[in-house]
């Protein structure tokens, strides 16, 4: 009986879709049951192999330009209803309108500092997007942390922690220089599955530490914090909880 239930829950375990109670129960069951443990191991192995080895087809060169040329120049007619239904997004919109109004109001009241922060945020996202578009992800392409770190510190006034987090699912790809809101920034590039994580860092000497804060902007997840005089912005389209995990790992190194 127990094994029946466990077998049903195993896929949800590897898909991170289990509630804490089921997870707790299943973890204990698997510890005592060799059969279910083997099944879990097999599922995980298969997932890992698919994530690592399945060929990823990148868009052919020229497709972006072709699409750009095909986009209509004149304004499209206003759309009363989408051509297919998207319940989740319609639902989200009601909340979003309120949230946006709130943001607008906050920005009106707070003004200066908030918009400066917003500039940084936009600039960081812009940097992330450029890195994906221009085939200019890295200036120094190596998974060797002992190469990336000196390369960055030789060029910038900041020496961020650079560690290969491959064993915990975030392999190091390389490093790059970028400009964020007009100032140079060191970018450490990681991957998670097929996704790129750009870790933007710059010196903020004398500023107090700040705990990680998560945001969603333009479909990207962002985690930002300040630690030992360095400001960090991690940007990616990996899931929010994975990016938070990544931020936690980097923090341990800083």
């Amino acid at each position, binding site marked *: 009986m127990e094994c029946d239930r466990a077998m049903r829950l195993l896929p949800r375990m590897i898909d991170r879709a289990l509630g804490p109670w089921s997870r707790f129960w299943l973890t204990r069951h698997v510890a005592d049951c060799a059969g279910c443990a083997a099944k879990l191991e097999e599922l995980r192995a*298969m997932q890992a192999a698919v994530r690592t080895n399945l060929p990823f087809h990148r868009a052919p060169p020229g497709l972006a330009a072709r*699409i750009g040329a095909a986009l*209509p120049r004149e304004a499209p007619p206003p759309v009363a209803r989408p051509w297919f239904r998207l319940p989740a997004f319609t639902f989200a919109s009601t909340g979003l309108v309120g949230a946006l109004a709130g943001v607008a109001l906050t920005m009106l009241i707070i003004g200066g500092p908030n918009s400066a922060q917003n500039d940084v945020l936009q600039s960081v996202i812009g940097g992330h997007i450029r890195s994906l578009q221009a085939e200019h992800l890295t200036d120094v392409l190596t998974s060797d942390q002992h190469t990336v770190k000196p390369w960055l510190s030789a060029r910038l006034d900041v020496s961020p922690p650079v560690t290969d987090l491959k064993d915990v699912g975030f392999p190091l790809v390389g490093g790059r220089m970028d400009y964020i809101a007009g100032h140079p920034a060191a970018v450490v590039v990681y991957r998670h599955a097929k996704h790129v994580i750009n870790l933007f860092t710059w010196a903020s000497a004398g500023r107090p530490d700040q705990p990680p804060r998560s945001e969603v902007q333009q479909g990207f997840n962002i985690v930002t914090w300040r630690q030992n005089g360095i400001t960090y912005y991690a940007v990616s389209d990996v899931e929010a909880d994975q990016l938070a995990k990544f931020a936690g790992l980097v923090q341990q190194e800083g």
Partner: protein
Amino acid sequence: MAQDDRRRRFELLALPHLDAAYNLARWLAGNQADAEDVVQDAYLRAYRYFDAFAGGNFRVWLLTIVRNSFVTWVKENRSNRMMFVAETPAADTADTEEVMWSSSPRDPEALLMQSIDSQTLGRLMEQLPAEYREVLLLREVEDLSYKEIATVSGTPIGTVMSRLARARLALRKLWLQQAETENAHGV
């Protein structure tokens, strides 16, 4: 100009996800030329209905459109036999049905699965029905949640879960067959 601004906002949001859109289309359509047509069609639709995007995850929204463009493209360009939805097994409509993993606990299988090369895996994947490829891609490559996959594929969450289980089971079967063939040939 407002129109330039709209276009710039669209490009800023949509272009970073071009690889994800193309990869999905490429795995669904099976070749580059068709995948490019599907993606281009999807981007034009997305641009047209851009005002209907009301926040949330843009990648999920865009992949939903890519998926719908593919379905339309299949209807217009391929015979009914190739229809995306028609391949759904009847049992798949039973949302509550859970797919059981055959209980043959053998650790060597786990080891076996770690040692597949990219080309072989790609070939096995191509043998799966489109809906299995789709759910595996959305889950393992795009790292979407069950709920997000349900949005993209327009199916209830229960169907997503049972379909994913079937897809994994089918891939596992091909995988083991492949390993047996290799052994038989002494590779």
